[in-house]
């Protein structure tokens, strides 16, 4: 029941928070924080389970026997790390909004917790019908978060978000049913269970279409070009908490879906489409970076920068080697934390400048709010991939891992990594240096904000300098996913620094 509780606790917590808001706003906030702390404890508890590549914990409850759907949950290294980041970033979202959100507090925290519940459902579900259920479900509270607590243009952004997601979700539902039908007809066992379906291989002519269905939904979720239409608006016009949730872990469900479902089941079909998708990934990288460069709105810049990183993630997933997948894992975590931190900073800046997000109207912030500016510089440097930050480890691993199967694209991606450096530093130049234009007399960070961002920076540095814990947690499960069937030698002994260091030698391209 532990895993089911991971999903039920935020559901009940959300209701409790809404009820608590009737009593007082602070009680509501503390209830939410309490729920999230409880969840973190549960999660850390799970980390102690045996991690050999199979499920670390699994459970199943009957649901709709007529169709073969059950409430099946399971967790392995990959999903556990993603679950952990989701819970932690939800906590960040709540803490960031502590002083800034005071309308309909109950509903706000309710939606945050219910989004988390949906996302946890996605990461933990091993029944494809349940997976879809959670996949669609997490979108609705997110829609409300964007539409009701976002800025003036948030209504249209929220609608675009939900239309893209639900439409692509329906295509995935058809693909799920198609897989269910094919498997049922071939084996006589009509089931949605992941273990059964993941082992199923078929040459049926519909199989490429099924892969396309799954891929389409995840490509919209990540997103990658050309399915990214919803992303800049949604990330920009959402409230700070919303942007943190969206960029921090909601987009990661797309990457998770690709690694969990598309890579194992549709290996063959994916191989034929790899050149096309790899090109799209590289285009996304350049597109995101170039457009970030052109932005004046600071949140929109961060949104496009996030898009660029997702192109990189897609490249790593496509390569499918153990190292690139390890890199993807680290990138998902590191990118999540750094983008969440950047959005948090942007939100704090926006409250201080009373709504100005246009960097051309800022300037000279460094003198006024030095602590803020320093932390911002650190985060921006980590985001562009400075060694010592998490993004660097991720990028190195992905580049080295992808060079083997996708050499040309990897070189293009490498070139593309120059642009983030440019726009990131230009962000600092425009907003923080020079003479103040319209932003005057700003107050620096208070203790709560300093602690929050400081903690995020520490986590990012830890990922960057000591990535082995993460790599070790994800390694066994990733080894099962990677395209090359030969397991890396490091796993026969105990996992050690081989996985983090000695990178060019431990895998043969």
């Amino acid at each position: 029941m532990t895993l089911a509780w991971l999903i039920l606790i935020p559901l009940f917590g959300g209701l409790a928070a809404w009820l608590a808001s009737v009593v007082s706003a602070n009680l509501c906030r503390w209830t939410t924080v309490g729920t999230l702390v409880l969840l973190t404890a549960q999660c850390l508890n799970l980390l102690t389970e045996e991690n050999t590549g199979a499920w670390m914990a699994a459970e199943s409850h009957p649901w709709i026997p007529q169709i073969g759907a059950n409430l099946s949950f399971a967790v392995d290294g990959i999903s556990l790390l993603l679950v952990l980041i989701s819970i932690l970033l939800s906590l960040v979202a709540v803490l960031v909004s502590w002083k800034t959100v005071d309308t309909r507090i109950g509903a706000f925290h309710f939606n945050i917790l219910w989004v988390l519940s949906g996302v946890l459902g996605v990461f933990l579900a091993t029944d494809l019908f349940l997976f879809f259920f959670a996949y669609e479900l997490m979108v609705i509270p997110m829609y409300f978060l964007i539409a009701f607590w976002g800025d003036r243009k948030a209504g249209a952004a929220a609608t675009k978000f939900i239309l893209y997601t639900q439409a692509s979700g329906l295509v995935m539902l058809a693909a799920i049913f198609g897989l269910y039908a094919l498997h049922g007809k071939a084996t006589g066992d009509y089931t949605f269970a992941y273990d059964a379906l993941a082992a199923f291989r078929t040459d049926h002519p519909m199989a490429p279409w099924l892969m396309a269905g799954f891929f389409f939904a995840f490509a919209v979720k990540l997103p990658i070009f050309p399915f990214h239409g919803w992303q800049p608006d949604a990330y920009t016009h959402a409230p700070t908490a919303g942007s943190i949730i969206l960029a921090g872990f909601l987009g990661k469900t797309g990457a998770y879906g690709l690694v969990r479902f598309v890579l194992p089941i549709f290996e063959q079909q994916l191989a034929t489409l790899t050149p096309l998708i790899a090109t799209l990934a590289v285009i996304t990288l350049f597109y995101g970076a170039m457009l970030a460069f052109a932005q004046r709105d600071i949140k929109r810049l961060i949104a496009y920068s996030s898009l660029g990183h997702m192109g990189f993630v897609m490249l790593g997933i496509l390569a499918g080697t153990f190292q690139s997948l390890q890199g993807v894992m680290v990138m998902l975590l590191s990118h999540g934390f750094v983008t969440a931190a950047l959005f948090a900073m942007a939100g704090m800046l926006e409250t201080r400048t009373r709504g100005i997000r246009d960097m051309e109207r800022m300037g000279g912030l460094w003198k006024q709010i030095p602590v803020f500016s320093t932390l911002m510089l650190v985060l921006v440097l980590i985001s562009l991939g400075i060694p010592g930050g998490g993004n660097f480890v991720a990028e190195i691993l992905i580049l080295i891992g992808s060079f083997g199967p996708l050499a040309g694209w990897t070189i293009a991606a490498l070139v593309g990594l120059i642009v983030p450096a440019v726009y990131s530093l230009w962000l600092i130049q425009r907003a923080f240096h020079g003479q103040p234009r319209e932003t005057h007399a700003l107050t620096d960070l208070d203790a709560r904000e300093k602690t929050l961002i400081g903690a995020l920076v520490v986590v990012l540095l830890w990922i960057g300098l000591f990535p082995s814990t993460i790599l070790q947690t994800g390694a066994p499960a990733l080894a099962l996913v990677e395209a090359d069937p030969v397991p890396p030698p490091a796993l026969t002994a105990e996992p050690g620094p081989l996985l983090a260091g000695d990178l060019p030698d431990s895998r043969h391209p």
Partner: protein
Amino acid sequence: MNASDFQALLPILVPGITSLVLLLVIAFFRNNRLATGITLAGLALAGYCLAQAADSGAVAVGILFTVDGFSLVFIGLTLAAAILITLLASGSMEDLDFNREEFYVLLLLATCGACALAASSHFVSLFLALELLTVPIYAMVAYRYRREESLEAGVKYLVLAALSSAFLLFGMALIYGELGTMRFSELLVEMMVVDAYRPAMVLTGSALMLVGIGFKLSLVPFHMWTPDIYQGASAPVGAFLATISKGAVVAVTLRFFIESGAYHQAGLMTALSVIAVATMFFGNLLALLQTNVKRLLGYSSIAHMGYMLVAFIVGGLRGSEAVTFYLFTYFVTSLGAFGAIAVLSRGEEEPDTQVALRGMARRHPMVGALMTFSMLSLAGVPLTAGFLGKAWVLSTGVLFNTKILVGTLIVSSAIGLYYYLRVILNLYARDAEPAIPVERVPLAGAVALGVAGVTTLWLGLYPTPVLELIRLAVAGL
């Protein structure tokens, strides 16, 4: 007719008898609450008789009716919906200043017709029950006759329904003339004897029948009446039209297709597929332009009948289960959507435009939440009954490889999501003055709305018992 026949027919007869009792009572005492009470008592009694009839097996009453598990499930669904609609109507009619009680007589008669339709297995009973269902609706639609739109809607419905009934009758006559029998099951037997009949005549007859059925189910291109009638009728009547009227016709059509072997007529099935695609598309596309929520719900009901047709066309055990389950989910969802409008009406005025509903959720949080939930269910969002219904239909379509139908379902569902969201966003808008000041929501209506909402959630989370029931019921067909 012996005792067991009588027991089987009781669920159908009781609403009819109740209407007569009510008519007599009205002659002496005019009281809205009393009339509501008698109606509810009659419907509940019919439900009790239903439970009794369910214990015995399938009963063929003469050649006209077959009261089996399938018809009992539909009769049960109809009675439950009628109870909720009675509650909704009762609440919204408190402020009416002319005769209110006759409405329930009409409602009971139409319900009796719908129940009879679910059990009919003969052309004669089909037509009689259909007319018994339709004629009271003419009056129900035009009930608030002082509003121009209601009167217009009533007359429009009268003319068009009568015309479609004529088509239906002509089609049935052609088939009878060719095959010599009117009983559904015997039609199949007659058609087995090759060269004894002209297939072209049977096909023509079937096509004409399809026109009549297409009208009742508001399938494209027989759907033109729907938005006007839904707008003109009051919300409880709209609920009745959307749920009971359509559900009964679907039940009898399903029985007709299965028992008479119409599924084997390739021409007919192709025509039905084309109609399904057109219905799904036009239903959703035309709804995009609507600013009146009742018209929008009308177009939405067109689209939903299109989705249901996908499972209908697949047929067989799986298809029939999917159709029935879809109707269950569609019933509760529609009752929630129409119910939300019904509970907010005052006298003859109803908040049915986007403008009138703007910001409604802020003044009535619970009603707004329930309406939002119903809209999400119509859109097919998980956690609601509407999602599982649509998933069932989609799975049936995929399992039987109907690519075009499935593709159309997906695309049109995606289109549909947009206008439902617009309604939801409008409910929570910040800058609105209430068009119709409403302080208190009638208790009866609130109860009905609550039941509809809870059932939508329950079916959306745990459909297993209902699915078992449907499976047992359909197996007997």
